């Protein structure tokens, strides 16, 4: 137990490992389908419009948003699988498609809000790169022809905007990271109530979730060296830990209400 009364990161990880131990084929199968769909969709979106006009930029941003919302339906399916597993219920790969069958409108509304907020984070860097791209400087030839001071200035601006974007995205994922589980666990709640409950559940637990997500970076780096294959297992482990974290938070909230 930590100071806030919940399980520590190590305890959550141990619980998550125990949870997925006998059900790894389901977890890996679901993660593989999710990753394959995401890979295809990302490549389609990236390849549709490659010119650097303003209209193309707007179309690309809209397509990225729509694909993020669509992937959110799969993400909710993944959350359902891990939610079932941490509560000791049987799960199957079919659960990945659960939200296409049952109340997809709720998932789409929630994912539209979350994806919209995350888009705000990455929009400045995308606009900067897009307008910079119009001058031809982002091509290798353009970069080589630039003088050192201009290149350093570009790197600083790009780095700052990327950092701001990452901080916004992390903040959104910390405040609203449990909303998907709440959506599945409480079918009677609407989007606003789900978001508010997620924010209230994360009160006093954001640092713990941040620590959990940062602690997986070394494993993801290790998985990267295996051409991403091992990351299917790392993803399963991380998602099980987040689901266990949700279980812990919801039980802590129950204890407080009692």
């Amino acid at each position, binding site marked *: 137990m930590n100071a806030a009364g919940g399980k520590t990161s190590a305890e959550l990880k141990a619980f998550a490992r125990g949870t997925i*131990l006998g059900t790894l084929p389901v977890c890996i199968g679901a993660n593989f389908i999710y990753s394959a769909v995401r890979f295809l969709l990302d490549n389609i979106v990236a390849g549709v419009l490659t010119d650097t006009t303003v209209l193309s930029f707007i179309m690309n941003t809209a397509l990225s948003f729509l694909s993020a919302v669509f992937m959110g339906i799969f993400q909710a399916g993944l959350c359902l699988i891990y939610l079932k597993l941490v509560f000791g219920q049987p799960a199957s790969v079919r659960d990945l498609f659960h939200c296409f069958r049952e109340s997809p409108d709720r998932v789409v509304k929630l994912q539209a809000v979350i994806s919209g907020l995350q888009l705000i984070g990455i929009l400045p860097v995308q606009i900067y790169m897009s307008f910079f791209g119009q001058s031809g400087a982002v091509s290798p030839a353009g970069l080589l022809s630039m003088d050192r001071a201009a290149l350093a200035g570009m790197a600083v601006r790009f780095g700052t905007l990327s950092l701001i974007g990452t901080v916004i995205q992390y903040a959104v994922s910390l405040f609203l990271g449990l909303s998907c589980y709440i959506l599945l666990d409480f079918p009677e709640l609407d989007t606003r109530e789900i978001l508010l409950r997620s924010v209230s559940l994360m009160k006093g637990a954001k640092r713990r979730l941040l620590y959990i997500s940062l602690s997986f970076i070394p494993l993801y780096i290790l998985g990267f060296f295996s051409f991403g294959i091992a990351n299917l297992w790392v993803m399963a482990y991380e998602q099980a830990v987040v689901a266990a974290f949700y279980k812990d938070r919801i039980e802590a909230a129950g204890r407080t209400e009692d």
Partner: protein
Amino acid sequence: MENSQNGPEYYSQYLDDGYRLAGTAFILGLISLGSMFIFPVFMTCICGPLSIILAILSKGENRKMISRAKLGVVFSVISLVLTALIIAGSVLLALRMMSDPVYRNELDQLVQRYYGYPLEELLPPGVFE
């Protein structure tokens, strides 16, 4: 969501799964180390990290790994370190060949013998300057 109960049968199955996963981690670690002599870098890069991650997952709720999983991790770490050394050595050798005229001449002859082109034609312009 309601919590389901886990009985003794579940616990026995759970231990089996842990041992099976540790066995897989061990075999992958062994393949990773063995492939250093047959198919270095590529197989090691796939099997090594996978073995380490499976060994971690095989712990289940326990804090310690079983010996088979530990061995898998040791084999994987050794093979990954050796792979890193091979890659670093290759890069250093290539850099030395490019800067040293004697080595460069030897490499040029080797490339001409195998590919029929001089080295300068195969590499991007400006590499030797």
